[in-house]
């Protein structure tokens, strides 16, 4: 085993931090490390938290950390914020709410930017989860802003997916895409100190009830809870629901490790293959300038995109399968 892997498993913070950087930056050398780490993963429980900007996700995560630490559980946090499409830079501000845990050795907090990679966010976040898992964290909490498909996919691969809303979102609740409602294992109405929490609750209940078809034969009905994260109200109850969901999952997988769930494995492997193919083929083409040339030809009206695609993909596949 490489010394990097050994240090990760031993919980060395600097090595873990550096490795996540390499994953994020798409360094090919991380693959070998991740292979070595894989057998040491599968022990952490992964919670995904998503919701509109400013609903209180980081504040909630901060309180969750405190509760889990009281139970002597170690916690890893991945807080994902959007990359600016204009500059490629990002301001990652979720840590502000979690400051008080920075000196706690049982807590590792990492901010990540969505970057540009299409579909790659899910993959790099999953790899980062694996690293924190191998490092020995009992719980891993992933926070994303529930706007883009990528961000939603990230939390979808958690064991328990939590959708956070706030009162008074009114029509916004209706606007929550059906896709988002579907992935919620638990709904949390935060800022319940504000007016309209009960209305939001009944609106949400109506919508999830209508969505029940999906849960037919399912023993899990997504609970809708109220909380006031800043005041630590309702957070303990929320964690109890997460625990119930964990037990439910353990039941249906008959005690198997969650990640060996066939459906999950299918999805992960497919994503990984897709990404690897894109990496190998598309990035090569970008480097040689072939992609840009094809774009120019289409823009200048010399070529149709279907032919351009054939011209690029077919030879690339031929060389890659040699």
């Amino acid at each position, binding site marked *: 085993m490489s010394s990097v892997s050994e240090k990760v498993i031993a919980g060395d913070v600097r090595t873990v931090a550096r490795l996540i950087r390499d994953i994020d930056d798409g360094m090919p050398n991380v693959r070998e490390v991740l292979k070595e780490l894989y057998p040491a993963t599968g022990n952490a429980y992964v919670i995904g938290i998503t919701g509109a900007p400013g609903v209180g996700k980081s504040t909630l995560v901060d309180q969750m950390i405190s509760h889990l630490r009281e139970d002597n559980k170690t916690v890893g946090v991945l807080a994902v914020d959007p990359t600016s499409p204009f*500059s490629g830079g990002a301001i*990652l501000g979720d840590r502000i709410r979690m*400051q008080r845990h920075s000196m706690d050795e049982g807590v590792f907090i990492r901010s990540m930017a969505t970057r540009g990679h299409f579909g790659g966010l899910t993959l790099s976040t999953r790899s980062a989860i694996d690293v924190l898992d191998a490092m020995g964290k009992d719980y891993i909490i992933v926070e994303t802003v529930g706007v883009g498909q990528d961000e939603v996919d990230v939390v979808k691969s958690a064991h328990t997916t939590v959708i956070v809303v706030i009162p008074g979102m009114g029509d916004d609740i209706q606007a929550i895409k059906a896709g988002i409602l579907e992935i919620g294992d638990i709904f949390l109405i935060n800022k319940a100190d504000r007016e309209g929490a009960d209305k939001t609750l009944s609106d949400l209940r109506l919508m999830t009830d209508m969505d029940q078809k999906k849960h037919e034969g399912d023993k899990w009905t997504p609970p809708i809870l109220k909380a006031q994260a800043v005041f630590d109200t309702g957070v303990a109850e929320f964690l109890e629901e997460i625990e119930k969901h964990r037990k439910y999952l353990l039941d249906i997988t008959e005690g198997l490790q969650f990640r060996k769930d066939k459906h999950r494995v299918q999805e992960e492997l497919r994503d990984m293959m897709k990404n690897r193919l894109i990496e190998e083929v598309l990035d090569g083409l970008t480097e040689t300038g072939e992609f840009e040339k094809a774009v120019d030809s289409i823009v200048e009206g010399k070529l149709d995109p279907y032919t351009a695609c054939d011209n690029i993909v077919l030879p690339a596949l031929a060389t890659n399968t040699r």
Partner: protein
Amino acid sequence: MVNKRRIRVMVAKPGLDGHDRGARIIARAYRDAGFEVVYSGLHQTPEEIVEASIQEDVDMIGLSSLAGAHNYLFPRTVELLREKGADDIIVCGGGIIPDEDIPVLKEKGIKEIFTPGTTLDNIVKWVKENVKPR
């Protein structure tokens, strides 16, 4: 897309004064320059800043101070990084810092000091020239 190193910067505001306008402005300028900026908020101790910077694997820490405690806070941050074997992380400072303090701070390992007279463009330029993403 692959092999794309990005500069990561921690913007931190140690000390007790309650203003972080300057820190926010600089954070935005860094973002607009294409850096990933971890902003960790007000009232951080050097210990907290260093721990967070290691977890975040940043290339540089930008400290901002208005209250005059920079002569302790800035060198202490450098010292802690050294203790943790993380002194490859560059430390810079900004804020209201008297000219006579600057050579002393540099002596103690603060790589550069930006005073209120330094333009954002020049700060960004300095970072691009002096901080290489690992």
